[in-house]
């Protein structure tokens, strides 16, 4: 049992690593390719220089960043308090909500985008700011579960009652008790919303908006190497963000871990 596990674990990891790094490595190699005037294959930064020369690169990237940050803000304002409230006051609804939050995965994006858009007022439908709200809905299956799992381990109701009993009013209870214990789950939910929003393509293109991912797709039709270079670039950015979040949460953990 133990022996088979000791083989199974490294081999699974190796396969997973291959699965991730083989395509990534190949793409990376491909993204540096360029051809000399004689048609000879060389490697250079040319495709990356090409990216920076694209006048639309920065504006699309910034737009996607902005929309993703807004989606994170909506998650902070709408989703986090709702899940906390569910744990504090409406435990009995939890299982219903859990099912409801799966819907964005089940309903086809076409139906979802049209249906959700119809619920928005006209002024919102005509701006790209409708996208962050949709991103929040699309990431709900994941954000809800991250937050819900995080809170499952903590008796939120009891500790917030303890806090009030000790003289903290509701705002103070939220600041000093609820927010700190939800911190790492909230960080995870934020990161997921951000990453999902930054890479969202289907819904955005269905609604005819032009963000970074849709722009990359259209660019790939005229310059395939440039498009791959763009993908490698955005993957690297995502990886760095992931690393930073990882560092951040492990530091939180370290603080909780200190013994006498």
């Amino acid at each position, binding site marked *: 049992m133990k022996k088979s596990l000791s083989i199974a674990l490294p081999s699974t990891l190796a396969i997973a690593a291959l699965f991730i790094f083989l395509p990534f490595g190949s793409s990376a190699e491909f993204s540096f390719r360029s051809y000399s005037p004689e048609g000879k294959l060389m490697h250079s930064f040319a495709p990356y220089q090409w990216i920076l020369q694209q006048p639309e690169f920065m504006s699309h990237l910034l737009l996607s960043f902005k929309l993703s940050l807004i989606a994170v803000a909506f998650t902070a304002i709408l989703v986090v308090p709702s899940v906390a409230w569910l744990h504090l006051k409406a435990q009995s609804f939890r299982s219903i909500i859990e099912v409801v939050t799966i819907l964005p995965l089940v309903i086809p994006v076409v139906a979802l985008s049209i249906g959700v858009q119809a619920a928005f007022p006209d002024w919102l439908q005509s701006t790209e700011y409708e996208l962050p709200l949709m991103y929040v809905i699309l990431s709900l299956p994941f954000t809800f579960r991250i937050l819900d799992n995080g809170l499952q381990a903590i008796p939120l109701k009891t500790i917030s009652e303890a806090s009030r009993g000790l003289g*903290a009013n509701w705002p103070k209870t939220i600041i000093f008790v609820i927010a700190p*214990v939800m911190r790492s789950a909230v960080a995870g939910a934020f990161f997921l919303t951000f990453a999902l929003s930054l890479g969202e393509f289907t819904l955005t293109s269905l609604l005819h908006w032009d963000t970074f991912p849709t722009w990359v797709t259209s660019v790939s039709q005229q310059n395939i190497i440039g498009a791959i270079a763009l993908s490698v670039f955005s993957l690297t950015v995502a990886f760095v963000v992931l690393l930073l979040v990882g560092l951040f949460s492990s530091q939180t953990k370290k603080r*909780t871990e200190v013994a*006498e």
Partner: protein
Amino acid sequence: MKSGTLELIGISRRFGQTIALDNLNLTIGAGELVALLGPSGCGKTTALRIVAGLESSDAGVVKLKDRDVTNLSAHLRNMGMVFQSYSLFPNLSAVENVEFGLKMRKVEKGNRRKQALELLELVGLTTQSKRFPHQLSGGQQQRVALARALAIQPEVLLLDEPLSALDAQVRTNLREEIRRLQLSLGTTTLFVTHDQEEAMAISDRVGVMSNGHLEQIDTPDVLYNNPASTFVANFVGTMNHIPAEQQGDLVSIFGKSIRVKNPNGISGSVSVLVRPESIEVSRAAGSGNAKVITRSFLGASSQIICQTPEGAVIQALMPSNGSGDLHPGEDVALSVMLSEVLVAHV
């Protein structure tokens, strides 16, 4: 002392169809420790939460030192509470947990750290002060919770089965410790439990609850020796139910007529309620009314279990040195050493 009298007057609370509290009246004197004892679901926690301001009541008044606090928010009540489940803030160390209430009261940092450490010393956790809740045992966590509740110098201390998650040894130690602290600080205390031994051991008075109201509230001695109802008699301590016939105010048991304390004017089959120590067992070869089944040596006293020819099993408790010759199978004569008994109608 800062502590004052706590009064619950006519408190009622329903949850949908369930009546959790039904006109509950209870007064706890300054510095007194009162335990609320009762079966699961009888409304103990609800009563405690209403006192703490964590639950609203449908009717009734909560008074603290003659001040009506019924509608006062929980965070303004200055009551310390220890919960049944672990309730420490997981992101704060033991000493930071104890400091929390003082921080909310804007006590200056050095000062509150000093007070918190003093309280941790009081509950015997000086060396664990920097540990986080997940690094403490269950008993240690409840000690920290107790220190945290005491740190705010509460006018009332509310304990909701604080020991129920702990094992027997720790329970007994910690309950003595709670009592010692409570006595030395003189804090008015309401202690909720469903463990009658625990309630009897540390309380000034015990209130026995059933279905949302108090059946009886009195000192442990009175409750044990003079229960007001069969419910209380059954709930507190061990009780024999001996089948007998009642005629008017008298019941005939082991060939002797004894007065019935709660006659009701009914005649017929009843159960007579008798504590094990009120039953005398004597050897009576050939002429007894029961046989010994087992004798268990418990130290100073011994438990003797007997059976009547009708099949009733009866428990008696006798001094060990007078009962050494009561072997299994022995013919014995049982008698009730009481002039008045409670009966339950069957």
